[in-house]
């Protein structure tokens, strides 16, 4: 078995998103120099915050080889409830608590569907997607809600000179990264993703790990919904729509594998989210046809998943068992 070519292949596959990013920067930079300014960079980062946060939660789920298609609906539902409360005169902190609670509740529902009722992840979360969105539409009565000013102020205010969205983003990323890298729970998530059966034999409580990641995903979706709400100042019926897509794309572009066990939040998922946002911002700056956005985004996602599948196939081929040592082995 030739190792050198497959090693090079893996290297190429692992670094294509980076090359893609460079390509995006170069292409848009050439077309519109405004793209490469610091102000634009900060802007892109702030705009990418909600996607990055949802993608962080999604990373946890993807690490266990699962998927959560309901995150957009959870964002919407949380935002709808918070908006309703805010418009009804409730204080800010009540709305925040409500959103968090909804995120955790929805995540728990997903967790139960997947671990207890053994429904395939994508169908289960597809179901909660519809139920969640339905509930949200009911609460907002399918109208857009404009939020009171104190809410919007949250989205554009700064603490110590740093915009609040960035603070929230940083907070979520750092905590998520710390959990995945430095806690026993986090390492067990990776173990379950690598091989759930071996994990079980090793004494890891696999159902608890699986359930937890969906709760985490729900929580992150809720936080992202809160942030997005504060940034937009309104809840339209299309709030959070297709965010699950962007989240999966961000994670996969950042190196997380759909097949489980591989991936990280910092720099991976953050990078993926920024890449996607740069793409969108770039398209806006060069005045590209807005109708092209979904085309470009889906093409990128397709590419990301293709790379992931290719890498998975190469790794599988490399780890095939050898039953004899060839004479020239070291």
């Amino acid at each position, binding site marked *: 078995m030739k190792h050198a070519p497959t090693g090079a292949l893996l290297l190429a596959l692992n670094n294509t998103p980076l090359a893609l990013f460079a390509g995006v920067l170069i292409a848009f930079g050439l077309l519109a120099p405004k793209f490469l300014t610091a102000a634009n960079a900060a802007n892109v980062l702030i705009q990418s915050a909600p996607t990055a946060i949802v993608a962080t939660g999604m990373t946890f789920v993807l690490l266990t080889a699962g998927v959560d298609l309901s995150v957009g609906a959870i964002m919407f539902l949380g935002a709808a409830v918070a908006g309703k409360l805010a418009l009804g005169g409730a204080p800010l902190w009540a709305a925040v608590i409500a959103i968090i609670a909804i995120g955790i509740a929805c995540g728990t529902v997903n967790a139960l569907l997947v671990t207890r009722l053994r429904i395939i992840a994508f169908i289960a979360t597809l179901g909660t997607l519809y139920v969640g969105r339905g509930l949200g539409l009911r609460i907002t009565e399918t109208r857009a809600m404009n939020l009171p000013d104190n809410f919007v102020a949250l989205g554009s205010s700064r603490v110590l000179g740093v915009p609040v969205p960035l603070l929230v983003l940083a907070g979520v990323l750092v905590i998520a990264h710390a959990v995945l890298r*430095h806690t*026993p729970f986090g390492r*067990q998530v*990776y173990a379950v993703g690598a091989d759930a059966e071996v994990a079980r034999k090793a004494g890891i409580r696999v159902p608890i790990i699986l359930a937890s990641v969906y709760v985490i995903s729900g929580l992150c979706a809720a936080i992202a919904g809160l942030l997005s709400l504060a940034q937009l100042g309104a809840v339209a019926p299309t709030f959070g729509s297709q965010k699950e897509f962007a989240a999966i794309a961000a994670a996969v572009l950042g190196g997380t594998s759909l097949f489980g066990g*591989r991936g990280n939040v910092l720099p991976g998922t953050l990078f993926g989210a920024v890449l996607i946002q740069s793409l969108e911002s770039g398209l806006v700056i060069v005045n590209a046809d807005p109708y092209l956005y979904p085309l470009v985004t889906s093409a990128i996602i397709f590419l990301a998943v293709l790379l992931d599948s290719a890498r998975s196939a190469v790794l599988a081929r490399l780890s*095939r068992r*050898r*039953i*004899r040592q*060839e004479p020239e082995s070291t």
Partner: protein
Amino acid sequence: MTTPQLQFERITKAFAGVPVLREVSFDVPAGATVGLVGENGAGKSTLMNILGGNLAPDAGRMWIDDEPFAPRSPIDAARRGIAFVHQELNLFLNLTIAENLFITGFPRTAGLPWIARAELHRRTATLLAEVGLTISPRTPVERLSTGERQLVEITRALSIDARLLILDEPTTSLGARETRRLFELLARLRARGLTMIYISHTLEDVLRLSDRIVVLRDGEVVGQGARGEFDVSRLVSLMVGRSLTQLYPTRTRAGVPAARRREPSEVSAGQNAIAPTRPSAHRTEVGAEPSALPSSAPLLEVRGLSQPGVVHDISFSLTAGEVLGVFGLMGAGRSELARLLFGLEPHGAGEIRLEGRALPRITPQSAIRQGLAFLTENRRDEGLCLHASIADNIALVSLREHCRGATGWLDLDSIGRAVRRMREAVRLTPTASNSAPVKLLSGGNQQKVVLAKWLLVQPRVLILDEPTRGIDVGAKFEIYQLILGLADGGAGVLVISSEIEELLGLCDRILVMSRGEIRDELRREVFDRERILRAALHASKAA
């Protein structure tokens, strides 16, 4: 450090009515290394699975330090200090060595769920040093060689303060240098007083490493004692067994095969040559002498077939009407060879010729078109669509022959007739209807369905991998008859098996494989159990 005295007392286990362990009893003294040897199917894995908490015995008991030991899960066994290093390593490739070792017991900082990395790496480094592995604890396991991974598994055993270490075929995937390193480690562990059970087919290694040796055959202990009481020859003759209950059809060549029990007096432990029992029958196709092999033009010719890491320089030929056996122990490369022949895996070098025609690129589809058939060793995973009906399974390969026109319109009547015909030919149990899912059938009947599927395309060369695995005695006989019938009809049959007896009873010639190579070839006249086993054990030939 107290080490356990382990006792097995009349451990008995059967699977689906087939006995696998019969009242196995032996002791493992504290601090000793016990070598456990036996052929495939002798019961070693089952016994170890019982010890390791994966299975429960039907009868019998185990004792550790004179206290009853009945683990209900691997975790129970681990808690009593038993560490199992399997052939299939249980490691997480995406994690580091340190993380693998402490995945359920990370050292924490101040009691919080925060991994104390410095402490983690320190402890890991200490363990690795004991094992002689000078690699950073931070290394991801996927970057380690197989030998290094194995040492990590052993390290894991030490990390849980194991008092009994079980090693199952540890040297199969190791090169010479890694094997040496492993043995040095085992010697150190032995000096520390760790009790070990060492399972291996490499008899010289077993003799070198063990204090005591236990030999299993057909689920029974047929020999145990101090190492000094054994040598390779004695071990081989103890391992070689005779199943006195299996009937083998004789090859008459003239018609229906007749059954004949092989008397023990014909084949005793001393004289291992088996006299030909075939009556001289008239052969219509090839006017050769009765004791000569069938038609000389080879049906299948393989020259220099190699695939790095899998098989090396395989050459043999198969003639029409011949039953060629391939014997080898687990990991010898027989199934891998079969898959190469059928086109399921690519091969690097070498040539395959079918009826004189070279086959450059082979895929299962082209193989079938050329007249090859392949009954895999795992019928449930690769041989059957378990939830599909008997009829659908039987018809699967030959469907194309019942098509009319370009649309692939199926002639259901002709399919039905073919299926019914084949059902009778293989004597499938009449109680199951054609539309019942094959899942419900017994192992023997399931295997007959797979065989029927292939027989319908009238293959020229049939490759059978473990055709009677997990099948009761009666069904085995029927399958033997079918195999011989096939050969009588002019096909060439390649039978891969781990049961020497089976091959001795069925085949005209036997190839013996070990470590991906063909080590020996025996014609019927010189069939010799010990010679076969020796070759398979890659032990040196006896003088």
